[in-house]
C-alpha cells in the first residue's frame, strides 16, 4: 500500500516539476522573443502543456473526490479558452496591420 502511495507521490512530483519547468520556459520565451507572434507562440506553451501536467499532478494527489472533478473542469476551460484567446489576439493583430517577421506595423497609428 505504501509503495503505491510513494509511487503516486513520485509521479505527481515529477509531473508538477516538469509542468513548472514548462511554465518557466514559456515565461522566459515571452520575454525574450523578438516579435509579437513568436511571443504569442511562447506564451501558448504555458497555456496548453503546462496546465495539463500541473493539473494531472494535482489530481494524482487529490484522488477520486469532488476536487478532481473540479480540476478536470478547470483544465477543460483552460484548454478551451487559451487557444481561442491566442487566435483572437493574433487575428486582431493581423487585421491591425502587424505582419509576422516584420517588426514594424504597416499601420503606424496602431502603434502604442
Amino acid at each position, binding site marked *: 500500500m505504501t509503495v503505491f502511495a510513494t509511487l503516486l507521490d513520485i509521479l505527481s512530483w515529477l509531473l508538477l516539476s516538469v509542468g513548472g519547468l514548462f511554465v518557466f520556459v514559456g515565461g522566459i520565451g515571452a520575454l525574450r522573443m523578438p516579435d509579437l507572434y513568436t511571443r504569442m507562440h511562447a506564451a501558448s506553451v504555458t497555456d496548453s502543456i503546462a496546465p495539463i501536467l500541473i493539473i494531472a499532478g494535482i489530481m494524482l494527489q487529490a484522488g477520486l473526490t469532488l476536487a478532481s472533478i473540479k480540476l478536470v473542469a478547470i483544465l477543460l*476551460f483552460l484548454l*478551451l*479558452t487559451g487557444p*481561442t*484567446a491566442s*487566435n*483572437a489576439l493574433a*487575428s*486582431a493583430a493581423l*487585421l491591425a496591420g502587424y505582419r509576422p517577421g516584420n517588426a514594424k506595423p504597416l499601420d503606424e497609428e496602431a502603434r*502604442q
Partner: protein
Amino acid sequence: MIVVFGVFLLTLLLITAFAIVRTPNLFVAVMLTGIFSLLLASNFFLLDAADVALTEAAVGAGISTVLFLGALALTAERETAPSSNRLIALLAVSVMVVAIIYATFDKPRFADPDAPVHRHVAPWYLEKTPDAIDIPNVVTAVLGSFRGYDTLGEVFVVYTAGIGVLFLLGKSTARRQEDLDDAPRGLRHYLIPRVVGRMLIPFILLFGLYVQFHGDYGPGGGFQAGALIAASIILYALLEGENRALRVLPRGLLTGLIAGGALLYGAVGVAGMLLGGKFLDYSLLADNPVSGQHVGILLIEAGVGITVTGVLLSIFHAFAARGRF
C-alpha cells in the same frame, strides 16, 4: 514560505501600481489595472480570505476592465499634461505615508492569536455559528445574519451607484443609424471566439448560480454570483452586439432587477417585524430558529445577487450605448 510568496506578490503589486501612475497612455493603465487586480486577488488568497479573493477576481479583473474600456472608448487615449503645482500634493502624501508607517510600529504581529481583533467578537461568532445558524461558512453567517444590517447598507450602496450612473449617462437618444437595425455586431468576423464564447455562456451562468447558492458551504454569495452572471451576459453582448443582449434582458427589466433585489432584502427585514420580531430577525421565518436563519440568508443573498447583476449590466449598457461597442 508562504510569507516569501506573499512578499514577492506584494513587490509585483508595487511595481504595477508605480507603472499605472507613471504611464501617460490610458489604455496601458487599464491593462495594468487588470494585472493589479489579479495580483491582489492572489494575495488575498494567500492570506486565506477566499470570499474576498473571489469577489476581487470576478469584479476587479473581469468586469472592471470591461467598464474601463467602455469609458476609454468615449475619451482620448493619452492623459492630458498634469498641472504643474504638484509639490504640495507630494508633500501631503509624504507626511501621510510617514505617519502611517510610524503607526504600524505599534501593530500586533501578523496573525497573532492574542491580538485584540482576534479576542473581541471573532471568537463569539466562531462559537455561536454552529448553534444559532449551523452553516459551515462563518463568513456568510457573519455577513448575512450577525451583521445583516451592514449588508443591507451595502446593497443600497450598490443600488445608489447604479441609479447614479443611470442618471449621469442614461439612455442616449442620438444613436447612430447602424444601431437601429438588428444585424449582429460584435466580434462577428472572429468565428472561433464566437463559437467558443457561445459554448461558454451557459456554463458561466450555471457557475454563477452555483456560487450564489453555495455561499453557505464554501466561498461564494450574492456579490460574486451577481458579478459572474453579469459577466456571462456581457460576454454575450461582446460577441453578438449590444442590441441583442438588450433583447435578452431589456433595460426595463434591468431597472426592475436593480430595485427588486434591494426591495427583497428590505422585505425580508420587514417580514421579520411583521411576524413579531425585530427588523431583519430571521428566526421567525420558519418553524425553528435555525431553519429560519437558513431561509433568511438564502433570501437576502438572492436579493444581493439580483441587485448586483442589474447594476453591473445597466452600467455596461449605459457605456456601450454611447460608445463604439
